[in-house]
């Protein structure tokens, strides 16, 4: 009789557990793989731009510290973005003398303090500011509701493509016409090549970025 009750209890527990089994929790989802999030301004025609320039190092933002880094990994990341832009027909020009239509900022956020929720907060933390692009009195601006990223503690690459061509028309705002976010750098054993492949994916999922219509 006792054995029967035990079996019944086990069966009930199994049924109960399968009834509750659903998707994995956030922690295990975050640990799974790199995720690429992109958003572009649907009102912007990217074929109007012909030239671009890119920052000469990567802004790395930690909890209470930030620095500009140009090691082999950072260089590889910048080169990958340049290659993707050129494959879409854009010409790389000098930031100061080439009058670029588009500017590309690249940052890596590695913080453990998850207290930042509003988009673009990292612009104030050692990121390249608008003065870098020759607009000291301007501010960056998303002309759309940007994707929210809350779990920065997993490590994040952020690529902001800014519209320099039309900045004077935008009321002291430099529009971020495309933002690409690669999430999960600190969650697994991701190689530099993995990150570069994800840069390609960010471009692949935004076919609107091209010089020819």
């Amino acid at each position, binding site marked *: 009789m006792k054995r029967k009750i035990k079996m019944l209890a086990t069966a009930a527990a199994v049924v109960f557990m399968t*009834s509750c*089994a659903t*998707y994995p929790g956030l922690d295990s989802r975050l640990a799974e793989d790199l995720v*690429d999030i992109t958003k572009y301004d649907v009102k912007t025609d990217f074929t109007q731009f012909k030239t671009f320039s890119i920052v000469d190092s990567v802004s790395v933002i930690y909890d209470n510290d930030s620095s500009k880094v140009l090691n082999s990994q950072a260089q590889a990341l910048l080169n990958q973005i340049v290659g993707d832009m050129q494959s879409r027909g854009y010409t790389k020009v000098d930031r100061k003398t080439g009058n670029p239509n588009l500017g590309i900022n690249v940052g890596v956020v590695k913080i453990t303090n998850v207290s930042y929720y509003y988009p673009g907060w990292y612009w104030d933390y050692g990121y390249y500011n608008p003065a870098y692009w020759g607009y000291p009195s301007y501010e960056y601006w998303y002309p759309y509701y940007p994707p929210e990223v809350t779990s920065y503690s997993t490590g994040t690459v952020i690529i902001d493509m800014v519209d320099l061509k039309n900045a004077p028309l935008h009321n002291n705002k430099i529009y971020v016409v495309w933002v690409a976010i690669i999430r999960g750098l600190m969650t697994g054993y991701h190689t530099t090549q993995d990150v570069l492949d994800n840069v390609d994916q960010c471009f692949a*999922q935004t076919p609107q970025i091209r010089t020819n219509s």
Partner: protein
Amino acid sequence: MKKTYIAIVAALLLAVTVHAQEQAASGYSPTSLYTLSWSLSVPLGSFNNFINNVSPAGGNFAGRYLLKKGFAVGFEFGWNNYYKKYPRNTYYGPDGLAITGIHYTYALLVPWKVGAYYYFLPSGIADPYVGLSLGGDYMEEHIMIQEYDIYNTQWGFTMSPEVGVLIKFGKYSHWGANISAQYWFNTNSYNFTDYKTFSTMQGLNFSIGLTYMLR
């Protein structure tokens, strides 16, 4: 004479058998019954394209009230979780958004229904029945990619024919088991912008439950 004996014995035997059968069949006819069931759900039709996994995660609670001659009315509410992990692919959202990663597709279905039923042998040990229930389905559909949870909630009209059998644990026991199969469809639909789409949901639920009966 011999023939008469045989006829009488046969008639007696028949009478005894008939009486015994009646005895077996006449436990008692419950006036109301309540069933808590575990329910397994098989998505069908376009809902199957959205999540093609059988859901073992579900249950329902039903109450039924017997009127006359085996006819009954009742209520039922329940839930079913449907879940599937998809390999890395790209979700294209509104306003220029795109997200690439491993996708967890998840749906929750919560039906609230009333129904009419017919029990063939209300006082039998095994009492087969048929029924039809109508109501509303509350539903959530989610695509989860890391911390991103793209979801939608909705209500739809639902209808489900059902066949089942109620088995009493003893002639006079208050307890029994209920086994049933329900086909259901509802008017819920969803379009994850070029990604996962379904229009009208259908499924087949198999339930097994414990029933408490009142005389």
